[in-house]
Each structure stands twice: as C-alpha cells, then as structure tokens.
C-alpha cells in the first residue's frame, strides 16, 4: 500500500513537471515584455503545482520589485535565500528591496560564536550536515578496519589518527545537524505585508499600541493565538499583531 502511494506521488510529480516548465518559460516571456503582473500569475501557478526553486522565488521577487510591491518582493527574496543561502544575486536584489522599506531596525549585536554558527549553518543545511556525518561514519569504519588489519606499525599509527579525526568530524557534524534542526524548528520568520500595522501590547483591538511596523519588515513569530500573532523584532522588541498583516516565510 505504502509503495503504491510512493509510486503515485512520483507519477503525479513527474506529470506536473511537464506542466510547470512551460509555465516558468511563459513567466519569463512576460517578464521580458514588461508584463510583470502576468509573469507573477504564471509563476504562482508553478507554486500551485507544489514545485519551487530558489530561482523561481528570485524571479517572483524581481517581478514584485518592478511593480513596487515592497513587502512581497522581500518575502520572495527571503524565500529564495532559504533555499539557496549563498546566492549573491538574491542578496543584491534583496538589498535593493530592503532599501525601499520604511522601517529600519538595528539588530542586536552578535557574539563571535553566533556569527560562526550562522556561517556554518549557512554553508550546509541540517540535511547536508547529516550527509556529512554519514560519510564520515563510513570513512571512520573503513579507516578503523584498515588500521585493525594493517601490519606495519607506521601504517597503523597513521590510520588510527585518521579514524579518530573522522570520528571527531562525525560527532561535530551530527551535533550541528541536531542543533540546526531544532533552530530551524524554532525559527519562524515572517514578513509584514500590510502597508502599516500597529503592534499591540495585548492580542485585542482595544489594547495599547506599542509601536508601528510597515511593509517589508522581517519579524520572528513567537506565539500564535487565533487571529493574533506574537512577534519579535531583531532588536528585541515584541508585541501582538493581527495574523492577516503578515505572511510567514
């Protein structure tokens, strides 16, 4: 039964691949002609087919930027960066879009360790680190066995050190994979879509306004309560905002 399901999903995805590629091409043509809204429509249909890519999100961001939709353009660039965190084109165009947003929020200073950590998590996702762990576990076994069966003293010493090193790398990458996965689970970024939104101190309309946010600002979702979301800014401020005013990445 389960196998059948897999086959079915595979069939459906291969089917939709056939539909999505022309839609992507159509979007490109329309973008070239300057019909940005039509380009967006085509590309959104690709997303409706449950397919995506960093390039698709990047193109959507470009089209929205051309239409001066600051919020959506930042949203799609961020989406693209999630899939491809090292792409310079995306970073450049995101900088263009961020220049056009109204809020400027100073991030809290980071320690050197968090900087390293963000760098490492940017290089490989938790899946990447998991693959690395598997590779090194195999390497360790290979080196260990070679060490065990090798005869000469010098070879033995070299192989032993090699196997120890690969165990070290294995443990580190495994730990990183775990850490990154828990962080990814906690990390719920969202982009403000409303042109201007009041952040309240409590999740109801009548409560006090803490501060105001504008289109395109990136926030972290901490809690959810029906139609209200508790958000936190990168400078540490937090408050409640109607769920309709933002869109989770």
């Amino acid at each position: 039964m389960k196998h059948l399901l897999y086959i079915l999903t595979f069939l459906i995805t291969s089917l939709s691949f056939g539909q999505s590629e022309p839609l992507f091409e159509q979007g490109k043509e329309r973008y070239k002609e300057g019909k940005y809204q039509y380009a967006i429509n085509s590309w959104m249909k690709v997303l409706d087919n449950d397919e995506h890519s960093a390039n698709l999100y990047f193109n959507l961001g470009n089209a929205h930027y051309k239409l001066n939709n600051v919020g959506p353009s930042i949203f799609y660039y961020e989406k693209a960066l999630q899939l491809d965190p090292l792409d310079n084109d995306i970073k450049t165009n995101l900088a263009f879009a961020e220049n056009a947003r109204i809020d400027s929020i100073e991030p809290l200073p980071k320690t050197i360790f968090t900087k390293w950590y963000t760098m490492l998590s940017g290089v490989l996702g938790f899946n990447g680190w998991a693959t690395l762990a598997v590779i090194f576990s195999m390497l360790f076994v290979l080196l260990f066995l070679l060490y065990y069966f090798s005869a000469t003293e010098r070879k033995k010493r070299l192989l032993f050190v090699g196997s120890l090193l690969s165990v070290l790398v294995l443990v580190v990458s495994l730990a990183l994979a775990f850490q990154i996965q828990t962080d990814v689970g906690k990390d719920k970024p969202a982009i403000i879509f409303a042109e201007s939104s009041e952040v309240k101190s409590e999740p109801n309309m009548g409560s006090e306004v803490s501060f105001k946010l504008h289109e395109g600002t990136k926030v972290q979702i901490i809690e959810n309560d029906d139609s209200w979301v508790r958000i936190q800014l990168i400078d540490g401020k937090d408050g409640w905002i109607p769920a309709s005013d933002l869109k989770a990445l």
Partner: protein
Amino acid sequence: MKLKYFIYTIIFLLGTSAVHAQVQFDAKVSKKKLGINERLRVDFEMNQDGDNFNPPDFNGFRVVGGPNQSVSNSWINGKRSYSKTYSYFLSPQSRGKLNIGQASIEIEGETYKTSPIQVEITAAVTVPKDGNNAEYVASENVHLVAEVSNANPYLNEAITVVYKMYVSHDVSITSNWREIDTPKYADFWSQNIDNQGNFKIYEGEYNGEDYRYVILRTTVLYPQKTGKLDIEPLTLDVPIDVPGNRRDLFGRRLTTRVNKTISAGNRKIDVKPIPLDGRPDNFTGAVGDFKFSVSTNKNTLDANEAFELKTTVSGTGNLKLFDLPSAKLPSTLEVYEPEHIESVQTKRTGMIGTISETYTVVPQFKGNYPIRPITFSFFNPKTETFSTLSSEEIIINVENGPVSAQKEVTTVTGDSKQAITQFKEQFKYIKLTSDLEPIAQTTFFKSTLFWSLLGGPILLIPLFIIGGKKRRQRLADVEGNRLRKADKLARKYLSEAKKNMGSQGVFYEALERALHNYLKAKLNIETSEFSKEGISGLLIEKSVHTDKVTDFVSLLKSCEFARYTPTSDVTIQSDYNKAVEVITAIDKQIHQASY
C-alpha cells in the same frame, strides 16, 4: 498756689493730647434700604492715616467697583482736618437683611474696627420710565447685540460672532466709546477680523424699529471643546448725547451727555462632538472642506541629490488647527524636518487658504523607492460626513549610486589620487533556468535511511573483526581445509544429481555420471568404459582403503540396478549422502597417498 498751676497745666496738657489722639474710623453706607437691582456705596472713613486696611468680606454682595481711595487734608483757621476714605460699590445678590462686616485698620500701632452695618434689600425697584430722564432715554435707545452665526456647531467648525451696536435716530454718539470688558474666548481658537477703526454705518431694524447700527467687531471662533460653552459678553462704556427739551438761544435743543455701560448678553454655544461613526483611523481633527495633494519636484535623480516632497492641503476649515499627515518614506531616504508654510486668510466664513509642508529628501542608495499614497481625512460639517483623500503613489527612481553602505568599492587611482567609487552592483535580472523541485521534501536527517547509514558501518566493525579471525583460523587449520575442499568437490560433482532428486531415473543417471566424472578428474582416466573390477583395482592402486572402494563400487551398482527398479525417496537420499561421503573419503586418501 504753685501746686494749683501745676495741676491746671497737667490737665490742659492731658486734655489737648486727648483731643489730638481722638481717632475716628467709621463705616458709612449710601442707603440702608435698597432694591436688588440697585447699587450700594460703602465708605470706610478715618481721620488719621493708618496701615493694613482690611475690608470685610462682603457676603451676599458682589463688588462692582472699588476700593477707591480718597484723601482730603484741609487747614481751616489753623485747624487741620484730615480724612481718608476707602469706597466700595456693591451690588446685592439676594433679598433680605444683609450685614456688612467689620473693617479693620492699624493707626499708630493700635487696631481699630468699624461697627457692622445692617442693610435691607428689597425687591427690584422699577426704574422710572420718565421720557425726560436722560439716563432712561439713553438706555432705551442704544443696544449692543452679539450675533452668533451658529449656536450649535461641531467641534472645530467655524462660527462667527458679530458685535453690532444699534443706535436709534433719537440719540447720537459723537465721541468714542471705551471697551470695559473684552471677551476672552477661553475654549475657542479665535481671531478678530479687524475693521481698522472705520465704522461704517448701516441702516437696520431692532425690535421692528428703524435703527442705525455699526459693526464693532467680527470674531471667528473655532470651538476647541464640546458641550455648553460661554461666550463672555463685550461691555462698552458709551457716551451718549441725549437731546433734552430745553433749547438754547438759537433754538437748538440742548443735549445732555450720559455715560452708559452697555453689554451684549452672555451667549451660550452648544458644541457637538464630531461623530464617531465612520470616523477614519487617520482622522486628526480637520473640519471643513479641503483638497489634498502630494507632489515632488523630480522623480529621477542620483544618490545624494536632494528632491522636495510637498504635501498640500487647501480649502476652507480649521486650517491652522490640525497637523498635516506626515509622509512615510523608506528608511534609506534621508528626510529632513519639513518646512511648514501657511498662507491662510481669516474671513467671516472662517479660515481659507493653503497649508503645506515641504520635505527635503536625499536618497542614499540606488533603486526604486515607492512613496505610498498618503491619506488625509476630514469631516465636512455641511454634509456631516467624513471624506478621505488619497494622494497618488509616487515612484522615485535613483539611477546612480551604491546599493548599500557595505558594498561600496573604493579604489584609489595612482595618478590623481582621487577616490573613485564604483557602483558595481546592478539590479540583477531574473534567472533563466527553473531548477524546479517538489515543495514537499523528505528530510534525510533522522530518517531510517540516515540512521542505518550512520550506524550500519559501525555495526560492521565487529562483524569484520570476527570474520577476520575466522579467516585466520581457517588458514591455520590445514587438515580441515582439505576436508572442506573435498566435500566442496563432491558437492560440485553431485550438484546435478541433487537437482534431480525428484525423478528416480534422471537422478541415478546423473549420479553415475558424476561418479565417473569424479574419477576422470582425479585420476585423469576415462572410466565409463571400465568394468567395476577395473575401477576398484585402479583405486586400490591409488592406495584407497578397500572398504571405501567397495562402497564406491556398490554405489555404481545400485545406480545401474536402480535404473530398472523403482526405489523409494529415502533410498535416493541415503544414496546421495553415501556418494558425498565416499567421494570425500576417497579424495582424502588419494591426497594422503600422493604426499
């Protein structure tokens, strides 16, 4: 005698000093009985100068005037008479018997007090309506009226108060009047419309009679509070010339000048609050009828060039009393404090004109900057509705400049030593390859595959180690190796026979062939044509035990025999096992012989 003179002198001295020290401090009232609409004058009189005069608190009266101080000092026949008077004008506030309390003063270190006075206040006394009384005539012929354009306005809606002085044809005003009390308009924003002292005389009617009137002043008021508000009266002191009945030598009527205090009555204004229903969020209190626009002086420029953004509200209403909606601009545009320009005239209908704010904006970075529509809401008291005006979206296109502060690349050229900033970063074009993948991705991390790939190799370590040990043991054990080899050989030859264990004929045929093949392989002799005796002789020659040879021959025999007689499965199985055993044994013995 001497004593008598001495006593006289003493008495005389004492008497004169007593006369000098006689201090008088009295309170006097002009009337002991008066009507409630009349006024009362109280004088506190003393015949020597004193300090710290302390008047009574005139309970039940309102102090209309005073204290007025007067001092008289006269010498008559060398005799000095001095008097100092404090006067108060009082207006009673209630009927009945009222007490005027004690006043006190300090004269030469001693405190003196007046005695209290009781005054009786009766009902209002009618003013004599004597046609010849100038006062009466004046009061009947001059009126001050405050006309309010709208007694029930909305908050911040303009109302006009016009003060008109009506003068009948019977009297005349020749000299100027004096303002005694100017209204303050505490809860209003007010502006007087000045008529620069030019009073134009209009003809009008007052209570159905022909009057002349002048407009003294026009004030535009914007109520700043809701509820019932008072407009304080304007009070004037007007000299009025009343013509009398007497005439002078030339037959002209003699006029009497009367100073009359006239006042426009207190007016109450009921201010309505601006309705809450349908009030837009960005309503900041603008009331009137306005137009709103936002404009820039250029739309395309380079970074660090300045442009101006101007928000303008024009129309009629409380223009000076609300804030213009502020422009919200992207944070990377440097915005300076706006310049506020008002060109507003106040007319009788209210303020009219334009207010504008001009922002100077300097873009820092390259890109397109949309300036979102700015909305402005106001309440129109005429239609009693809110209107929201929205400006057009403006796009500012910054053509040249850095993308962000960090990405600026600065190089110094050798010759001119001039810093050249390269604006390398361009807005990147769309990507042309799709690279699509399904959104629903299975995560490799923590999947069964991941765990098995991670742990599997480690589990392999003991397996490999045990395997290695086994291998070494086998290599060490030569005898066992040979046995295993022979067994393997036998099984190899008998594999076809084993396959056909189901059918009897094929099995025995294969078995026989296998036995012959074995001998052929071992001894390099084709034995199929040999008799059984020949085979056994050959084997014995190869120093094989006779019992094994017998077994081998008997096996061959049973193969032949079984071709023609049916046997059971059990026999087939036992024959097969026997064949394996015999081949193994022979093999072993042949080898032993050869070494």
